C-alpha cells in the first residue's frame, strides 16, 4: 500500500512538471502584456519598463520559468502582479469560502444521491423511479447560470426571502445568516452533481441486485434490507468515489459562474479575475493547485476502490 502510494506520487511528478511547462508557456506566450493593465497616463516609457523589470518580465520566458520553479521549490508562489500581495495570502483568503461551498454541495450531493439512487432502484419502473429519473434528466441538462438566475428571480426578487448577494450580511456574523446566503449557491451547485450520481447509483444497484451473490445471501436467509444496505450499496458506491475524485480540483478552483452570480468570495472569481488582469503568478498557482488536487483525487479514489472492493488490486 505505502509502496503503491509512493510509486504513484513519484509517477505524478513528471506529469506535474509537464503541466507546469505547458501552462506557463500558454500563459506567457499569449498576446498580452500584464504591465499594460496598470499603467496610467502619466507614466513614461522608462517608468513602464521599471515596472516590467520589477515584475521580472524583462527576461526570456525560459529564465522566467526557471525562476518560478526555483521559488516554487522554496515554497514561494510569488507576488500578484495586480496588488503585489503574496499569492499564498490571496489563495488563503479565498480558499475557505470555496472549500465550504463546494464541500457542502458535494456532501449534500452524495447523501441525496445515495438515498434517491437506492429508492429509484428498489422501486424500479414505478412512479417514484420515473419521477426521480425525470428530475435527474433536468439536473444534467439545466444550464447552471440560468438556474441561478431563476432562483434569484424567484426567491430574492419575487418573494424576497433569500439574500441574493455575498456570503453574509454586512456586520452580521451568525451561522443562520451564512446558511441563508449559502442556500441558493449550494442548490445550483449540487443539483447537477446529485443528478449524475443518482443515475449511476441507480443503475449500479440494479446491476448488483441481479448478481449471483445476492441470491446466494438471500438463500442463506439474510434479511433483504440488510443485503441491500450492506452488500449492494457498498459495491454500488464505486462510481461515487471516482466522480468525487475527479471533482476534487473544484474544491480549490471553485465554480466561477455560480460564484460571480451570487457574489461568493471564492477561488473561481480569483482565478478568472486573474486571467482578465494577466496576473500570471496567480494563474499559475491555481493551475498547479488544481492539477495536484486532481492527481490526489485519482490516487485517493484508487485507494478507496481497493478498500471497498478488495478484488481490485492496486497496480497500474
Amino acid at each position: 500500500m505505502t509502496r503503491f502510494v509512493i510509486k504513484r506520487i513519484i509517477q505524478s511528478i513528471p506529469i506535474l512538471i509537464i503541466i507546469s511547462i505547458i501552462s506557463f508557456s500558454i500563459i506567457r506566450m499569449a498576446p498580452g502584456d500584464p504591465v499594460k493593465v496598470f499603467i496610467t497616463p502619466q507614466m513614461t516609457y522608462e517608468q513602464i519598463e521599471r515596472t516590467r523589470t520589477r515584475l521580472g518580465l524583462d527576461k526570456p520566458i525560459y529564465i522566467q520559468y526557471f525562476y518560478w520553479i526555483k521559488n516554487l521549490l522554496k515554497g514561494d508562489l510569488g507576488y500578484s502582479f495586480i496588488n503585489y500581495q503574496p499569492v499564498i495570502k490571496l489563495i488563503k483568503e479565498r480558499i475557505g469560502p470555496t472549500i465550504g461551498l463546494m464541500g457542502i454541495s458535494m456532501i449534500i450531493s452524495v447523501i441525496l444521491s445515495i438515498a434517491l439512487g437506492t429508492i429509484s432502484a428498489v422501486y424500479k419502473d414505478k412512479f417514484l423511479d420515473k419521477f426521480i429519473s425525470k428530475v435527474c434528466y433536468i439536473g444534467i441538462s439545466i444550464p447552471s447560470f440560468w438556474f441561478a438566475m431563476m432562483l434569484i428571480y424567484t426567491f430574492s426578487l419575487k418573494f424576497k426571502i433569500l439574500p441574493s448577494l455575498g456570503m453574509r450580511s454586512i456586520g452580521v456574523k451568525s451561522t443562520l445568516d451564512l446558511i441563508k446566503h449559502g442556500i441558493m449557491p449550494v442548490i445550483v451547485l449540487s443539483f447537477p452533481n446529485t443528478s449524475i450520481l443518482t443515475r449511476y447509483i441507480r443503475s449500479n444497484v440494479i446491476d448488483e441486485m441481479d448478481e449471483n451473490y445476492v441470491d446466494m445471501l438471500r438463500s442463506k436467509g439474510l434479511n433483504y434490507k440488510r443485503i441491500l444496505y450492506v452488500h449492494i450499496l457498498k459495491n454500488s458506491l464505486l462510481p461515487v468515489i471516482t466522480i468525487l475524485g475527479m471533482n476534487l480540483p473544484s474544491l480549490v478552483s471553485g465554480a466561477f459562474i455560480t460564484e460571480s452570480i451570487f457574489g461568493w468570495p471564492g477561488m473561481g472569481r480569483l482565478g478568472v479575475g486573474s486571467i482578465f488582469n494577466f496576473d500570471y503568478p496567480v494563474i499559475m498557482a491555481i493551475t498547479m493547485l488544481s492539477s495536484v488536487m486532481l492527481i490526489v483525487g485519482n490516487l485517493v479514489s484508487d485507494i478507496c476502490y481497493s478498500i471497498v472492493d478488495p478484488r481490485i488490486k492496486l497496480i497500474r
Partner: protein
Amino acid sequence: MKFKKILVLFLSLILVLSVGCGEKEEVSTEPENEENGTNVVEGSEEKIKDGGMMVFGIGDDPKILHPFYATDRVTMTIDNALFDPLFVRDGNETRYYLAENVSVSEDNLTYTVKLKEGVKWHDGENLTADDLIFTLEKLIDEKQNANAYQNFIIGGKPISFEKVDDLTVKIILPEVSVPFIETLAGVTPIAKHIFEGEEDFTKSEKNENPIGTGPFKMKEWNKGESIILERFDDYHNGKPHLDQVVYRVVADSNAANVAFENGEISVRYIDVNEYEKYQNSNDFKVYGFDEGMLNYMAFKLNNDDLKDKKVRQAIAYALDKEEIIKGAYDSLEYAVPAYTVLTPQTLYYTEDVNKYEHNVELAKDLLKESGKENIKLTLGYISTSKEQEKEALIIQQKLKEIGIELELMPLDRGAFYQKLFEPDNRDFDLVFNGYIMGQEPDSYKLIFTKGGPYNFVGYENEEMDKMWVQGPMEIDKAKRQELYENIQKQIMDEMIQYPICYPKALIAVSGNIGGVEESKLMPIFIFEDLSKLYIIE
C-alpha cells in the same frame, strides 16, 4: 477630481455599471431632479439622523489601498474615503481639504502650501509638514515608482521642496509649468510615521490597514466580499453623519441590480432605462451629473484604408450623431453630442470646428475621391457595455449605406484594453473608447502626440506635437487659448477620432439617503465628501 485630475477613464470599467450621458452646461454638482421636479424630499424637510450605513457596490476588491498606486475606479473610490487630498479644483472654485491655502509666487515657480491645523491621522497622530515632505520625497523617488512620478519631474528635473514651519511647505519648480497646480491638488499625503523605513510601498503590509486623514477609517476587509469603513470622529471637516461606509463586492451586474432593489446596496450607477424607472419610484432618488467624459470612436491608422484622411472624413459624414445618441442613450437629455475632442469643462474648449453634419452624398463623394473600394472594417468595443453595443449596431447600418462593410468585435474588458494598447494589433480598425482627462488641456497630449502613452491609433504630426509642447509653457492666456483652439480644429479636420457624446453619469440612491447634493457629485467616486451624507429620519 479630488484624487486624480487626469484619468483616462475606461467605460464602465471596474464597477459593474453602465454610464449614462451628459448635459453640457451643467456643473457637476447640480442634481438632475431639480430640473425635472421629481419626487425628492426637499433638503429643508429632511431630518438628519446620525448613524446608519451606506453600501456601495464594487466590481472587485481594490488593488493596493495606497494613494500612490490607484489606477482603477474601485481603488480610487475607497482611497477617497480614507485619504483626503490637499485641495480640490472644480472649475473656478477651489475647495480646501488638508491645505488651508496654497499661494503661488509671481514668477510661477514657488508654491507655498499651508496645512490646516489640528488635522489628525486615523491613529490619532497629527498631520504635519513632515508628512507632506515625506510624501513628496517618495513621490519623486524613482524606486517607489508612484503613478504620478512623472508629474513631479518638470523639464527633466525633479521639483524641490523645503519645510518652512511645522505646517508650511515651500515647493520650488525647476521651470514654469502651468498644470502643476493640478498635480499639487492630486497630492494625497501619506503618514510618515507609518511608512517610514518601508522599502517597497507596493508590497507593504501597511496597505492592508491604511491610515489616512479622510472621514472614514478602515474597520474590516473581508477579501472578495466587503470592505467596512467606520466613522472617523476626529475628521477635520466635522464628524461624519454615517456610522459606516461599506464597499461590497458584486461581480455580476445582474446581482448588483437585484441587490440594489432589495436595499442591500444603497447607490449605483444606472443607465437611461433605469433612470426613467427609478425616477417614478418613491424608494429611490436619481441624480445625473457631468463626469467630464467624452465617448468617441477612434480610427486606427495602421489600417491602410483609414490612413486616408478622406475615408475617415467620409465615415464621419456618413454617421448621424444624433441618431447614434438617441439609439444608445434614448434621448439627447442624457448625452450631449460632442464635436471636438476636449470636454466642455476643459479650458479653451471650442465648438468652432468642422462639425461633420450628417451628409451621405458628401460621404460617398469623399469615398469616390479617395479611390478606395470594398472597404471592410472591424469595430472593437467592450462586450458588457450596452451603450457601445447599440452604438455599434447603428454605425454598422449607417456605414452600409455608403458601402463600407463593418464587422463587430465585442471583447471582454481585459482583452479589449490589452488589444487597444497593442500597437501592432490589427484585430480591429475602429474602436470605441472614452476618457476623462480633466480640465487642463495639456493632459490631452498623452492621446494625440507621437509616442504618447494613449496614442494607440498611432497618429503622428510633427507640427502639432510642437504646439502640444508649447502649451504648458505659455503663460499668456490669450495665446494659450489660440494654441489649443487651433489644435482642436486640426484634430477635427484630420478626423483622428470621431467624438460621439459627453455622457451624463446617472446614479440612483436609496430613498433614505440624504445629503447627496452637499457631498458634491463627482466623477469616478460619485461623492466627493462622504462626511456630508446622512440617513433621513
